[in-house]
């Protein structure tokens, strides 16, 4: 738990409330509820605030104010809509001058029901907002820390188009090497990849949110089959391939040995696999010009 949760500073704005909810918000500060015991401070300054409490529906006059306050708050921040008017517009929903709930103008994280919302439920809403604040901070932190760093993780279905395009780019050099644009990795379609995704495990290498490499594998009868190692040309020779192979080896826990193949002229691949402990054990023909070289490694 970071210190964010222990020191939530609040800014409260009345978008066009009847003052019912406002009074309840301020009641939270009184000796009866004393929210300051949780470190909550009611600031009047968006630049010091972490949590934005809004009461009342947003009308055309306050729309820009709500937006302005939200934009002036430093990240990470959360928004809590207090009372039914702030949540949906309430009984004023149909009014000609009312935009509706607060979520029509800015993103809202927590909705607190009630007319007027009770102090207990307001405090509950703020506590829930703290959880969101914490998550947001953790996400922000992870993005900040990952800048320029290589992250290897298991791929999800949404990654497949990106993986596909990297694969196509990566295998261009192979196609030139053999002067053959019909190599299977270059012929594979997104649909085929989606099919493969159902039975195989894919790993991706990500830098700054972009996929730069991938690998896939599956286990059959105690053998881990690893294939389609691809790394974008800009990021080759940086040890990414090695890390991808180790990652998938670690993931294929049931395998007692690993098998991998490449083509006979791909000396860089052969060298890489050699370094990783793979030894050649058989060859067969892909077509008249290209030989497939199989390599194996005991666990």
């Amino acid at each position: 738990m970071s210190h964010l949760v222990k020191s939530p500073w609040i800014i409260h704005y009345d978008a066009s409330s009847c003052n019912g909810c406002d009074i309840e918000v301020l009641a939270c500060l009184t000796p009866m509820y004393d929210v300051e015991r949780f470190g909550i401070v009611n600031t009047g300054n968006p630049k010091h605030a972490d949590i934005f409490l809004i009461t009342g529906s947003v009308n055309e006059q306050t729309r820009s104010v709500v937006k302005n306050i939200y934009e002036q708050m430093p990240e990470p921040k959360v928004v809590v809509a207090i009372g039914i008017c702030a949540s949906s517009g309430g009984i004023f929903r149909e009014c000609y001058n009312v935009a509706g709930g607060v979520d029509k103008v800015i993103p809202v994280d927590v909705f607190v029901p009630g007319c007027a919302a009770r102090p207990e439920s307001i405090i509950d809403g703020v506590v829930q907002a703290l959880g969101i604040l914490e998550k947001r901070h953790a996400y922000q932190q992870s993005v900040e820390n990952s800048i320029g760093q290589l992250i290897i993780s298991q791929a999800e279905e949404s990654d497949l188009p990106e993986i596909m395009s990297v694969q196509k780019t990566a295998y261009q050099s192979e196609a030139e090497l053999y002067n053959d644009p019909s190599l299977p990795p270059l012929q594979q379609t997104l649909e085929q990849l989606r099919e493969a995704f159902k039975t195989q495990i894919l790993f991706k290498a990500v830098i700054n949110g972009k996929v730069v490499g991938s690998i896939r594998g599956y286990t059959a009868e105690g053998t881990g089959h690893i294939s389609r190692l691809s790394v974008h040309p800009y990021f080759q020779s940086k040890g990414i391939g090695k890390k991808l192979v180790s990652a998938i080896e670690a993931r294929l826990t049931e395998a007692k040995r690993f098998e991998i193949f490449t083509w006979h002229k791909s000396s860089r691949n052969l060298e890489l696999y050699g370094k990783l402990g793979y030894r050649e054990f058989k060859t067969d023909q892909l077509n008249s010009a290209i030989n497939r070289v199989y390599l194996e490694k005991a666990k």
Partner: protein
Amino acid sequence: MNETTVKLIALGLYLVLGPVLGCLLGGIDRKISARMQSRIGPPILQPWYDFRKLLLKENLVVRRSQNFYVFFYLLFMVFTGGLFFMGGDLLLVVFSLTLASIFMVLGAYKASSPYSFLGAERELLQIMAYEPMLLLVIVGLYMITGSFSVTDILAFDCTADTAKIHAPVILQGAGLFLGLIYILTIKLRKSPFDLSSSHHAHQELVRGLTTEFSGRAMAAIELAHWYETVLVLGLVYLFLGSCWWLAVPVVLLVFFLELVADNTCSRVKWQMAVKSSWIMAVIFGVGNVLVLQYWKPILQMFGK
């Protein structure tokens, strides 16, 4: 241990323990204030949590250079305190303290928002209000002890010079002491003189000075204020420096009285703040200095 080593140790202790003490005092302040308002109040370590949180927040600025001024505010505040706790020259302490405050004012001016601007002007008025009394305290201490050096002033009561009769600093400088306590309210940012930036009134105009600061810059301001609190309480300590077992409770009592004043007084207008501080400076500051200058016999009645 020679003198330099002692001084360096004092400096080190101040740099590390200064903010710790300032932070704890801040926490105690909030707790006691809450109790006075029959609330439970935040944990004692709340200022520390706030500080850590501010470090995590985004630092929004109107102009980048405003953070530059805050940095120098912090730097000079640390320098001032360091000078004081190393037993340096009090005149220099007061001048660099003023310089630190001026950097804060410049930072607030730089942000050029109406609130920040107002805060800066009010801070200038406050500096104007407390400065004469502060200088008179220094002058008075010099007249009593014959030195501007903190080390000498602390040693004054202890010098067993029986040939020369002299009364303790606190008796000779009783007026100065009272005057100092009066302006301490301004320095600690307490009601009725929390015009430019208040500890407790968060929604009001009086947050002025810090309006445009967020994140790290705001954390730096908090940190500087912890150093400042310790420094000004150190000035109070100076009057009773010869016996720490009396001085420490007195300093804590003074701090408590400030809290009482904070919770019982409403904020005054700036005219009142300046006028009353100057009147205090004339009565207690100038008065005490005159006594020191012309009525030595009276003082000797207190003597050993």
